[in-house]
């Protein structure tokens, strides 16, 4: 099969079948990531640009390595050194990159919907590497891939997502993806960081972390932007950690074999205690490895889209 859209803008708009296909392809790619020879020709002759309007170390590196492992020509543009500083519009920037023959533009932007705008205006495929508070689909795909590896299935699992749901593109993409794949999603966090009517997305909302985590198969912490405290969204970091942090005691409320995930980097002692972050149930480092595999799968599937060279994975 091929992905239906030329772009991956979010998990809201793709089917469960497509998600499953990406995750299956990622299994193959993980073999490459973990092998001694990380050079393949999947993307030979393809041009891949990372266009980041926001700083990010791990997502950017993950995409870059994914591109390079598969033999693509890759280049980076960061907002600080780009024409944005000269007042160039996003569409003009995109069209310029497009005109240079890019196949895929991987884009991170602080404003929700920016990749959607670009996707409508360029021929290249756009991969959303995080847009404002909207979506971060590749992060959710790597989360789902990790869960799938550890649990064998997504269907019927109970996933607790804890923290700043309001500002979290990771949470939104995970909610779309996980519910689509048949998981049950619980969310909890400070009321000031809970999006209105979020329950209509098909999640259970709990006012206490304890309730949300009860019998969970997966506990996902979200990164708190510490500056939010200054904006009065919660009183202090200390209070946040006390009421919304995941520590060993709270983790015991989840199933015994529950796994802990976090998109990183972790504010240790805030969202997760250090013992939870480094504990046996934590697969945070594994998520990073899986991130490269998932991104390789996506790059491959998007560049292959529309061709007749379908291979069986």
């Amino acid at each position, binding site marked *: 099969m091929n992905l239906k859209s030329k772009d991956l803008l979010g998990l809201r708009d793709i089917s469960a079948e497509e998600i499953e296909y990406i995750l299956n392809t990622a299994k193959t790619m993980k073999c490459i990531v973990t092998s001694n020879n990380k050079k393949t020709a999947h993307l030979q002759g393809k041009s891949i640009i990372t266009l980041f309007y926001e700083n990010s170390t791990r997502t950017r590196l993950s995409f870059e390595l994914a591109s390079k492992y598969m033999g693509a020509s890759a280049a980076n543009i960061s907002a600080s050194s780009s024409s944005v500083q000269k007042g160039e519009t*996003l*569409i003009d920037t995109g069209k310029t990159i497009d005109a240079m023959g890019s196949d895929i533009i991987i884009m991170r932007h602080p404003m929700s919907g920016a990749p959607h705008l670009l996707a409508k205006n360029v021929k290249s495929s756009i991969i959303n590497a995080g847009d404002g508070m909207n979506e971060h689909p590749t992060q959710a795909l790597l989360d789902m891939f990790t869960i799938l590896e550890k649990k064998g299935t997504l269907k019927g699992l109970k996933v607790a997502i804890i923290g700043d749901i309001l500002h979290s593109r990771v949470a939104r993409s995970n909610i779309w993806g996980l519910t689509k794949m048949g998981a049950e999603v619980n969310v909890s966090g400070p009321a000031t960081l809970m999006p209105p009517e979020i329950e*209509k997305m098909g999640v259970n909302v709990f006012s206490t972390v304890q309730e949300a985590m009860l019998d969970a198969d997966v506990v996902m912490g979200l990164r708190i932007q510490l500056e939010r405290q200054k904006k009065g969204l919660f009183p202090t970091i200390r209070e946040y950690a006390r009421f919304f942090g995941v520590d060993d005691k709270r983790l015991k409320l989840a199933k015994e074999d529950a796994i802990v995930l976090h998109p990183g980097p972790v504010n240790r002692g805030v969202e997760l205690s250090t013992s939870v972050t480094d504990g046996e149930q934590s697969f945070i480092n594994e998520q990073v490895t899986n991130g490269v595999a998932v991104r390789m799968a996506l790059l491959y599937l998007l560049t292959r889209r529309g061709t007749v060279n379908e291979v069986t994975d």
Partner: protein
Amino acid sequence: MKLLIKNGHVVDAKTGLDSVTDILAVDGIIHDIGSDIDETGCEVIDANGLYVFPGLVDAHCHLRDPGYEYKEDIETGTRSAAKGGFTSVACMPNTNPVLDNEALIKYVINKAKTDGIVNVFPIGAVSKGLKGEELSEIGELKFAGAVALSDDGRPVGNSSLMKKAMQYASMFDITIISHCEDLDLVDEGLMNEGFQSSILGLKGNPAPAEEVMIARDLILAEYTKATIHIAHVSTELGVDLIRNAKRRGVKVTAETCPHYFTLTDNACEGFNTNAKVNPPLRTQKDVDAIIQGLKDGTIDIISTDHAPHHIDEKNVEFKIAANGMVGFETAFPLAITYLVKPGHLTLKELVYKMSFNPSQMLGLNKGTIEVGKLADLMIFDINEQYKVDVSKFESKSRNSPFNGFSLYGQPQYTIVGGNPVVRKKVLL
């Protein structure tokens, strides 16, 4: 010059006229209303099967002149208004420079005389530079020709200044049009705070940001006994607050705009910047409440809030896109299609909302079809359906979420002072 409109179904709110008849205008003044008027020497408009209304009066638009002529100017703005059936428009002062002094009010009036094809009435700023710090020279604004006062685009955030503005404006018998918005509560919100903002990941602008300020201004109006007009009401509680204030005798009028009785925040789906407007599009229950408010008379006026923007200000990320949509050329057809056709308003009630009441609120001698009055008229076909095509707008701008909508009631003729400026849907 004699203009005879033959056999149109004439509807007027003030006189109660609601029948097929002829109207004769001589030298721009309505000379006779009746049947079988002699056609000799007249330009004749056959209005058989068509409705004849008093020319529409818009109490709230942005002509962008001076300062933002690349979006609109008085010439294109009034051409757009004429195409939409408006014969008089009141333009907001958030231009550059701001209409906060006598010279600029006169600039608009004079430019409208040379470039405009409908009547233009400037609204002066409440505060100097719209900064909300010092009162404008309200008396001078009034005597220069300002028909109302508003800091539209921004709230008068300082409650004490608003109280003083109401007291001071009352002396000059000029109404303050309040843009109700508590900016602290808006907190950089970009669209209505609710399920849609949650799933799009866009910061929400909660309904209370509007309602808190409506409540404040109603309280201040009651206290000062001033007249207040609440602009672009969009929420259910906002309507309720105004309804209760009216019951208590507060001198308040209120307006809404076509997008608030036709669209919900679902229109922002896909990060559609043409649906980005301030106040934001709300939910279905708000839309229903707005319609109820129009039906029961709580909302007196339908204004356009015509807010043209250049494509480069809309074809950008949602967060940085300008607020507002062009309104003149769709306002009346939207009202016919979404209010009259479903039976929410009668045609006579619509005349009140779009012609007589705005004229009254602004203190204009317009909005009615009577012998001796200026022949400002509009004629439309209620049964002919057409498709909105923004590429055909007379406005310089194209930022409308209604492109492609099928509507009824497109104006066929717009007549300003006995002079047809739109004839058979064609602007002259």
